[in-house]
């Protein structure tokens, strides 16, 4: 195998071997134009061992039922909307679904505030257009159009960032499964196997709220934050270690205790209840995702390394922690103070953290 110079490989390239093995052993019914059967797609996502003994690595760590819903949705020709707070592997899942089902994850439209209708439908090659008038040759098809022609999965990232009028272009495509080209008096009809996976961020709710007509054409799967504290701690520790190396932070990797405490605080504030389920707390407006926990630890390590003795202590953590929790200076401050006074203060072995946080605030 020749080494690739790309920083990041597409899923279908990186896991080409797994995909071909799966295909070889896949004896079950496949929907038309699918590379794999729905069961094999689940195995590809969740990992497992084939009958031949070939091991498939897990792409998604979490609830298998969610992946089953996603695959069943695509198998019934419904578009799939992956929803969730930032950092819950939405794009990751959509890429791997496309790679497993169509063998191609590159038919991608990135949703931004500037995404235009041409990017969703088709554009024109103006030199051709001026020279020969409207024709198939002058047409520049979008990834979506390409996917319709070839019967593949198209991906739309950050659907809710796209202006509402542009979003609605999708309605015809999803319900009629065809894309009219009035200039040529023709249309592109989707081949079987075509489908759309969109991702959206539910913190951006209301930015460009999906119209109910469009909403109705999607099945929604919400990807949750990690289910258990242990799962989240291990994700944080792993990512912090990787990033620490990449950023060449001078501090030692943090003690598990500090990470566990931080993850606990994040989880408690996020879920609105303490870990022992005895006390309710208010939740702040901030997301408090796993990704943010990682960045708090990273900044704590940087502080400890550059200004401290290299070991991360509560006061190195405190400023980052408060910054992550208190996004709205007024409402979140109340939430944070209540949490500090009613929960952190009461925990005997958290006194150091309590003091560090109080010092930061005064």
């Amino acid at each position, binding site marked *: 195998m020749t080494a690739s110079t790309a920083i990041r490989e597409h899923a279908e390239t990186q896991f080409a071997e797994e995909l071909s093995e799966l295909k070889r052993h896949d004896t079950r019914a496949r929907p038309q134009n699918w590379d794999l059967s*729905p*069961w094999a797609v*689940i195995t590809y996502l969740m990992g497992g061992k084939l009958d031949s003994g070939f091991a498939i690595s897990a792409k998604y760590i979490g609830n298998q*039922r969610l992946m*089953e*819903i996603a*695959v*069943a*949705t695509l*198998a*019934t020709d*419904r578009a799939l*909307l992956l*929803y969730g707070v930032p950092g819950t592997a939405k794009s990751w899942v959509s890429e791997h679904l496309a790679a497993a089902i169509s063998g191609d994850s590159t038919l991608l439209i990135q949703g931004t505030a500037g995404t235009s209708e041409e990017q969703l439908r088709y554009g024109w090659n103006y030199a051709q257009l001026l020279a020969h008038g409207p024709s198939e040759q002058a047409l520049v098809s979008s990834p979506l159009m390409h996917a319709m022609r070839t019967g593949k999965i198209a991906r739309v990232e950050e659907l809710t960032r796209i202006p509402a009028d542009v979003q609605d272009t999708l309605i015809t495509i999803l319900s009629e499964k065809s894309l009219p080209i009035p200039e040529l008096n023709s249309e592109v009809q989707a081949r079987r196997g075509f489908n759309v996976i969109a991702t959206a961020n539910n913190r951006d709710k209301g930015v460009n709220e999906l119209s*109910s007509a469009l*909403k*109705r054409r999607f*099945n*929604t*799967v*919400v990807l949750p934050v990690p289910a258990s504290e242990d799962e989240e701690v291990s994700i944080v520790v792993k990512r912090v270690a990787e990033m620490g190396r990449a950023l060449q932070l001078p501090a030692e990797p943090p003690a598990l205790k500090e990470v566990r405490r931080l993850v606990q605080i994040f989880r408690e504030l996020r879920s*609105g209840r303490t870990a022992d389920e005895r*006390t*309710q*707390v*208010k939740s702040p407006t901030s997301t408090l995702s796993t990704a943010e926990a990682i960045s708090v630890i990273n900044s704590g390590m940087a502080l400890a390394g550059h200004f401290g003795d290299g070991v991360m202590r509560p006061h190195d953590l405190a400023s980052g922690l408060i910054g992550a929790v208190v996004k709205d200076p*007024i409402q979140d401050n*109340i939430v944070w*103070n*209540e949490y500090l*006074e*009613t929960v952190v203060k009461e925990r005997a072995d958290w006194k150091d953290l309590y003091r560090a946080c109080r010092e930061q605030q005064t």
Partner: protein
Amino acid sequence: MAAPHLFGIRHHGPGCARSLVRAFDALLPDCILIEGPPESEGLLQAVLAEGMQPPVALLSYCPDEPQLAVYHPFAEFSPEWQAIRWAVLHAVPVRFMDLPMANDLALQKAHRQADEACPEPAHAEAPAAQDHRDDASAEAGAPANPAASEDDRAGDPLNWLAHAAGYADGESWWNHMVEERGDGEQLFAAVAEAMTALRADWGEQRDDPQESQREVLREAHMRQCLREAQKTGAERIAVVCGAWHLRALQTSVTIKADQALLKGLPRVKVQSTWVPWTYRHLTRSSGYGAGIVSPGWYEHLWRSQHLPQLRTVGWLARVARLMRERDLDCSSAHLIEATRLADALAAMRERPAAGLEELQEATRSVFAMGDDSLLHFIADELVVGDRLGSVPADVPTVPLQRDLEQAQKTLRLKPEAVQRTLDLDLRNSNDLARSHLLHRLRLLDVPWGELAKVGRSHGTFHEVWILQWQPEFLLQLIEASQWGQTLVQAATALVIDKVGRVSDLAELAALVDRVLLADLDAAVQAVTQALQSRAALTGDVLQLLATLPPLANVFRYGNVRQTDAAMVAQVLDGLIVRAAIAMPLACRNVDDAAAQSLREKLLAAHTAVALRQGQEETQAWRQALQQIASSTNTRQLLQGVAVRLLLDDAVWSVEQVAQAMSFELSMGAEPSKAAAWLEGFLNRNALVLLHDMRVWQLMDEWLVGLREEHFVRVLPLVRRTFSTFSASERSALAQRAGQGRVVAAMPKPLAGWNEERAALPLPLLRQLLGVQQ
């Protein structure tokens, strides 16, 4: 002798019920034995009576001790219910073959007495739940009581089978294998085989030796009943019991051995009756050990048994109707897509039809945009359901009635149809018990007594009631008997249920008061707990402040009624701290009307904080007041109030107050705002001006220090404030002002002080005040 036909079932399983009815139709049994309390056999004919509407429960209880009781609930999809109905419809003799309740309850009583002799902390749970738990162990499909299955990882034996089949839990495995399947004539053989094998592996040991002993007795009695039935010459005997017991009925044990086991068991008197039941009480989370997770879903399965194709669509249509009732969009197209997704999911999971999980997942994905909140109310209204059963009017009385009659007798409080007034002196223990009784009845919606004096404080020793007994109270008692067998149990269970549904903090605080008055310790705990967690979530400071006064009252005067104030104190402390944190912000940027209502709440809460007398809480509260007093964008009225309270508590020195006062009332201040400040500061009370030298001086200095134009500007406003004082107060103020500044000095103590004469009244004063020398 004819071999019996054994039908091992799972209690409340619609699949079992359906297969059972079909099997009966094929077999046409001439004698039916059912696992149930033999004492209730006389009530079985009532299943077809008019007005009998499941869910209902057979209640067996000991008339002398109503807290000794067991419920056997039945839903329309319970196999036992269908078996009884079949028997009564076909006029086939039907017998209950469980251990007689007379023995069972006597054993339970001995068990409980043993527990009381060596109380374990783990047993400190609500009495209502206790009874359901005891009942739980009477059930076989899910043996072992809930406490045990939580601790014990193996838990429900069904989980073993489920794990072996690759399912996460026994419930979903059983649903797919048995309850949600279309076929099932061969079901009983399969179930019997599985359970027999399982029980052989599982062993006979239980965590609780008493429990396993009881199990042995029950099965011995079942075998005895079976032998008796065989003696009568019946040829096709059908035995319906929990699948768990099948093995015991099949093993051969000698008659003698069983007789020896059952000989000389203790007995108590037992009566039984039908009581209405609810689906909520059928769920496992209600504390019922053989409970099921989804009564509403099971009912749907039962009712759609003849139309399997409508199962998925029918359910989703109910979801859609529920959504529309809540003004949530839901079209037929949604229904079609959800049905397709549910079917596709079932196919992917290799199941013949969509089960509850697939339907819930399809609902979430298609109807709810992935939002879980919709599923919560579906879970509540459809999966569990709120069906309440009813029983015919002529069934015997319930123990709750007996408990009340007993209480009426011991407390000498006769029910009378005429109105009469009752004055209770709460220092007297009999009167106190009467008061508790009346308060408990009120909690149960049986308003036998009405409190005559509304707004009564906890401090008084008297309570005046107006009593009048209405005949319909009896019906209410029957309805309330679903909550428990004694008034205490029932009222506690009812309150605990209610707490889950009340969201208003003030209402919860009032409920604390009511349960304290009714002396329901367990309920007090639940309510205060709920109050605490609700308070943690509320963003409404007004609500938070409103809870303080009633709680402080309970705390302060709790001892008069011999209630436990410590429980309340803890909650109160938490609330004060929360209020103190949130209050400064709430006082900012409010309009006049809001400021007015905040002022009232603030003053009441301040009194409450003072009643609590907690050092830390007072500290936090005062800090909040200081923030309010010195914050610039707080409403002036509230600032004035805060400064005044700080002055009263001597937190701020006179100099500080003087500075704040001159700042607020200075030339630069807008006159209307200055007046609002003054209004807050004086607090509608001239007495403070008259009696507090410092305040008088401050006002005086400020007024005198005003320049003429400034004086002219504030005069109308000051006048407005002063006009709220009463006429006499105003004239006293005028007099005081007329005396000039000289009087403002402190009155000097008299010079010629006669020590001897002053000492004379001291002994008497000591005696009066109870002070030791």
